[in-house]
């Protein structure tokens, strides 16, 4: 009996390791993806073979290994039905990811350089979201099932949420940035629609993921700053620092940490029942600063229509900052409140489980 329980516990650990690998793999894909956008803007690579693509496909390989490991663990785990949905979603996601590679190569071969929004990239992004969602469900369920260990819980929450947050941000970027006009196709979104998507989508995501992290950590101070800070580090090192001209604006970008700390404090230390919504409101109001620098392209298309070259990104961004802040603050805050509400609903469903 004791040996049997020990065996199942070990299998569950194998499942957890696999799920962690799945999400770390997707994290690599998102990091590579963000770096790839910068690489396209700065260097306009002419071939499929590039370092960011290498990082992305290493991530896919890691996720695939993760799926195999978690499947092995899952088969030997008792009560494995609770983890079945996690595996199913991850399997659909990884199938799309694996399919995206050949489609991307085929697309590059036939049509040359593709834009941000293209069939292979959409396949990739949807695959990333599904794989990391499956991973997140597995990790979160595991975390709920086991006794609490602070460090471990935080690690699981971060590995569960960060990849899906980055992948979802990639989806909003694909649907709103004007990076999809190529020699063969013009998939650029209509400028007004793009602004609406960005103004609603980004604040919703910031609020949803950070408030979810707070709820999952059982209202712990610090998780919002940690998760948000990691997002800033990834975005800063893949979208800002590689651009020689923008490197010094990292100081501006770092100030977002102040807003994260304030939100963290308001949400976790305030006695007010709806403090999460106040925190969400703050998060919604900072989305234009949080998604610096490429978000500028979306608003520039509608408000200035200026020709943007990589070295002029930051100057146009700062030219627009006040205008964008004031015209978007109300819808952005409302969207962030919706993100907070949605997060609470999801969390209560997870707890019920």
């Amino acid at each position, binding site marked *: 009996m004791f040996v049997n329980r020990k065996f199942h516990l070990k299998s569950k650990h194998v499942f957890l390791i696999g799920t962690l690998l799945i999400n770390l793999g997707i994290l690599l894909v998102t990091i590579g993806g963000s770096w790839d956008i910068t690489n396209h803007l*700065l*260097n*306009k690579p*002419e071939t499929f073979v590039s370092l960011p693509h290498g990082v992305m496909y290493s991530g896919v390989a890691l996720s695939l290994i993760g799926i195999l490991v978690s499947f092995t663990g899952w088969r030997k785990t008792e009560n494995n039905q609770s983890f079945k949905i996690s595996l199913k979603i991850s399997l659909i996601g990884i199938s799309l990811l694996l399919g995206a590679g050949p489609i991307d190569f085929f697309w590059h071969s036939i049509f040359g350089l593709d834009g941000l929004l293209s069939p292979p990239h959409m396949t990739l992004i949807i695959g990333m979201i599904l794989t990391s969602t499956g991973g997140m469900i597995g990790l979160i369920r595991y975390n709920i099932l086991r006794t609490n260990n602070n460090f471990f819980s935080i690690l699981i929450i971060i590995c569960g949420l960060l990849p899906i947050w980055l992948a979802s941000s990639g989806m909003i970027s694909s649907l709103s940035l004007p990076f999809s006009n190529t020699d063969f196709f013009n998939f650029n979104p209509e400028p007004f629609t793009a602004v609406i998507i960005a103004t609603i989508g980004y604040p919703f995501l910031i609020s949803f993921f950070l408030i979810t992290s707070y709820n999952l950590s059982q209202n712990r101070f610090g998780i919002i700053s940690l998760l948000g800070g990691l997002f800033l580090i990834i975005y800063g090192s893949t979208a800002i620092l590689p651009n*020689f*001209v923008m490197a010094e*604006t990292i*100081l*501006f970008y770092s*100030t*977002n940490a*102040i*807003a994260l*700390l*304030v939100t963290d*404090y*308001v949400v976790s230390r305030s006695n007010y029942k709806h403090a999460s919504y106040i925190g969400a409101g*703050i998060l919604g109001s*900072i989305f234009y*600063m949080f998604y610096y620098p490429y978000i500028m392209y979306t608003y520039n298309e509608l408000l200035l229509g200026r*020709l943007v*070259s*990589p*070295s*002029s990104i*930051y*100057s146009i961004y*700062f*030219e627009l*900052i*006040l205008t964008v*802040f004031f015209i978007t603050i109300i819808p952005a805050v409302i969207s962030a409140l919706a993100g907070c509400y949605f997060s609470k609903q999801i969390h209560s469903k997870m707890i019920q489980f």
Partner: protein
Amino acid sequence: MILGLLGLYFSLSLVVFPSIYLSKEELKPQPFFDVQISSNSIKIGQSFDIHIFSQNIGDYGDIHILSVGFPSLEKIDEQIKIQNYDFNHQYKIINKDTMLGAEYSAGIKKTASEYALIEIMNRPSPAKGHYTLDLSVTPKNLGIFEIYVKTIEIPHTSDLAHFPRQGLQDPQNEYVAVYSVMVNP
């Protein structure tokens, strides 16, 4: 305390940093080139070499473009051979009637090419970055064989961002330096 921090964040993000970054002087990349031709007079059937040394003598730029035009050719055929280049992008062969960017507009204004060209670029274009392009030409026809050369830096922020800055204007309404070789019987 919390309101103070929030006030500090919005002041820094919306007022202080934007004014600091916007007050910075605009970068002014400045291209320049030097062309060496092996002979200015050849016999029909013989070849001559063109060595182009192109560089950015100004600030950091995003793209350094070198364009070499052949007004007597409609397409790049066996008369032109690309011997060597060290730009980080592959050259582009442009035949007559291809739509091209014009008036230093980075592609916003366009016009159709009236003769064959070779375009090559380096991205990005660091200050003091320099590149070479070597061509070998074997003209088929007698008479003067002309070559138009120009470079452009993107962003094209001022007249300094193109070279030459005066002289003949090509069909793209951009200045070119003209080189010629006499092809004798």
